[in-house]
């Protein structure tokens, strides 16, 4: 499945400099890339390379020092998934999922219908009235994914969403994320630390350099879709993994 040429996100010459008590941090420098609509892209890079910062800029949480970014679609809302599920402990599953549309003041029955559909999509039927404390890590992260889709954003930003899950759950969640992505046709930008996860999920992997972060490599992953777990053992897969690992090693060596 190839992505359409229409561009969903363009980032041009992005630069982010923080200054806090400990001094000045040059987080991102002259960072540019484009994402075509419906692309699944992952962002990989050494620790402290500004991956999370980039996501926070795109989510509107951090103003860029220089440069700009555009969402080329009808609304500039993004869906955001954090490393931790980040649910409200006083809200039940349905209420947590409903939050984005409650904030948009939509009618109740519309919110309920949408929440119901998404809870079904992430496979949490029967847990609608559970509180977050009763959910496992994987289930809680599914709630978070459903919540991020609630206001139907064109772009999903995921910051190491499976970082705190065990290896097996992580692979299952990856497959589910792909299914959701295919069902909903979103443009996804996801931060990960795992090379094989990046290749397995993505159409395109962006390698970020050591701080100040810029795009070191844009690697197109042309493995066929839908992806299957066995593909991890294909020679193409390991050659892509090699390229990524070399690029990561280079950027780490430069510092």
């Amino acid at each position: 499945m190839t992505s359409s040429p229409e561009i969903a996100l363009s980032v041009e010459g992005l630069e982010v400099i923080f200054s806090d008590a400990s001094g000045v941090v040059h987080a991102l420098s002259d960072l540019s890339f484009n994402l075509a609509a419906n692309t699944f892209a992952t962002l990989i890079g050494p620790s402290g390379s500004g991956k999370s910062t980039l996501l926070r800029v795109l989510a509107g949480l951090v103003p860029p020092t220089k440069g700009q970014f555009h969402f080329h679609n009808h609304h500039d809302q993004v869906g955001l998934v954090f490393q931790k599920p980040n649910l409200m402990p006083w809200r039940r599953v349905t209420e947590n999922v409903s939050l984005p549309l409650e904030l948009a003041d939509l009618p109740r029955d519309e919110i309920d219908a949408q929440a119901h559909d998404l809870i079904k999509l992430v496979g949490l039927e029967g847990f609608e009235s559970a509180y977050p404390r009763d959910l496992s890590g994987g289930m809680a992260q599914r709630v978070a994914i459903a919540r991020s889709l609630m206001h139907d954003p064109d772009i999903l930003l995921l910051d190491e969403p499976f970082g705190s899950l065990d290896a097996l759950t992580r692979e299952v969640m990856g497959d589910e994320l792909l299914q959701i992505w295919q069902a909903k046709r979103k443009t996804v930008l996801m931060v990960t630390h795992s090379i094989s996860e990046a290749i397995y999920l993505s159409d395109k992997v962006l390698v970020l350099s050591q701080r100040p972060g810029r795009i070191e490599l844009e690697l197109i992953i042309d493995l066929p879709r839908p992806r299957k777990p066995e593909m991890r053992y294909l020679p193409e897969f390991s050659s892509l993994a090699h390229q990524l690992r070399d690029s990561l090693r280079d950027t780490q060596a430069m510092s």
Partner: protein
Amino acid sequence: MSAAGSISKLHKARPLKRILILFLSLVIGILIWSAAASIFDLPAFILPGPGLVWERFLRSLESGQLLQHSLATLSEVLAGLFLGGSVATVLGYLIAKSPALENLISPYLVASQSIPIVAIAPLLVIWFGSGIFSKILICSLTVFFPVLINTVVGLREVPQDLRDLMRSLKASRFQTLTKLEIPAALPIFLGGLRVGATLSVIGAVVGELVGADRGLGFLINVGRGQYDTALVFVAVITLAVIAMSLYGLVLLIETQVLSWQSWRDEAK
């Protein structure tokens, strides 16, 4: 903490067993009290026995005296809780939002906390008279600090990730308040209110002891003046019951409003 833990464990026990234990501890207390009064052969104006106090209780109940003074104290306590609590909540919100305001106000807050309420109560009675208003002010002042601190702490503890979530969803300031800050800060806030409720009772009695014409503190003064120590006992026990009821009431609100928190888990 350990005391709170063992109290929670007591709550965890089956209701019937709990009531039985409570009843038993009351009976033992009264027995010791009764034994002390008779063994040491103390005169009634020093230590009246339980029987005498019970009799005095019935008499003051019959005359309407006890009810009248209890209601006076209770209304001071509740008015003070409301006034002090609301001012503290609003100020707490502003302080949590503005570090500049915190720097401006905190010296006064710290200073005000180092002065015991007993020391400024006479001043308030001089300024505002011996009527109900000075007592409400004293109650408000005692309630003020724990509610203020817990409001500030509660708001500061709202996880940054949830604030970021609200911002990424373009929530308004009002939406952030109602959908995030209030529910997130509520457990700590209600904890402050619970402490404030019992402190408010202390405030009311202190005010009434300094100068008043009604209230349970006034009744204690009357009993002492007339060597009617049984009446002092009646007033003190009534005060304890009022304070415990208020504490229990806030606790009940907490368990109802915060049902999403696992109370049983916390007791472990």
